[in-house]
């Protein structure tokens, strides 16, 4: 049980540290947009800079809810029809990252290409 107490303290410390990096969230980050419409993702290939902070704006233009999901990108986000939101990415290494709409699994995934 003591080990768990320590783990809890460690996590509490981690949580307290969170505001520091986020406090520097400025609007100067480059912004990229992706639109979802009933399972169709456009553009289906998005080029983003590698190892740089950027914002990815998500827009749901369709009549059904969507869920942006990607395990390699470590992100998931649910959007109601007509809703918009954004994700913040910090330093992606170069490579291709697949993401998909978890509420429209029959549609092909899209790709984020970091260069």
């Amino acid at each position: 049980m003591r080990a768990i107490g320590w783990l809890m303290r460690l996590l509490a410390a981690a949580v307290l540290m969170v505001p520091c990096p986020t406090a520097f969230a400025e609007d100067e980050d480059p912004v990229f947009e992706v639109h979802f419409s009933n399972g169709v993702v456009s553009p289906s290939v998005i080029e983003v800079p590698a190892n740089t902070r950027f914002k990815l704006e998500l827009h749901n233009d369709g009549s059904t809810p969507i869920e942006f999901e990607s395990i390699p990108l470590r992100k998931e986000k649910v959007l109601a029809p007509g809703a918009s939101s954004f994700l913040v990415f910090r330093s992606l290494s170069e490579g291709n990252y697949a993401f998909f709409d978890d509420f429209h699994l029959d549609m092909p995934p899209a790709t984020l290409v970091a260069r």
Partner: protein
Amino acid sequence: MSTDLTLQIFEIASVVWRESFEALLVVGILLAWSTRAAPEARGRATSWILAGAGAGLALALMLALIMSRAAGVLEGDGEDILQMIMAALAAILMLRMVFWMRSMDRGQTQDLADRAVRHAEAGNWPGLATLAALAVAREGAETVVFLFGLMAASQGWQAGFVVASGLSGFVLAAISFWAFKAGSKLVSRTVLSRVSEVLLLMLGSGLTMIVVDKVISLGIFSPMTGPLWDSSGLLDDGSGFGAFLAGLVGYRARPELLPLLSLGFYWLIASLAYAPPLTGKSPA
């Protein structure tokens, strides 16, 4: 048209089932185990767990409302931070629960310590309720946005159709839930305890991975290395069974060092629950 409709019903139901599966599994394990392990406290345990699940549902509705209205708070890092805290708390409670289950099992064989242990550990009921609440809130918010989003976008009979499809998804989930409960009555208490512990530990492992993902995503720690290997050819974590494992137990096809170390640390702590007690007396 009618095949299209069937497809939609199936899709809606499957999303609802997928999203509510984990929450119902947790609530099912807690209910089944606590009624068997502590029959004398059965009513109390059940009401704590159900109250927790109810609170979780209320929290899910609230989160869904925030997500769809004043999205500002949960945009960008906000949602990541919230998910990280909820997952971390749930993972810790899962571990604590397994330690508690183990100590109850040990108490069973040591009649003397039995009562004392039960009394001392009675304070864990709120923990049980919190675990149920977190499980429902985490998965529930997405289900609520999904269903309400569909309903808002449809009119008249279509809205009713969405409700019906959503309900059939819940019924699917409820059937899995009752199958688990019914099955729990067929097996011995020891088997039930073992199965419950292993399931909770696996779910905790998945939660640990979520915490690690958020920690890296928020820039608190770096992943330490690039991906150490790529097993996506063998089992892809983005689709099918791989995706199921990824969500439930934290499988990753291209793991970096930090996620591996964290999982190792998690399972090390988990294994302490199974280490023989160092002294003769029961653990405090």
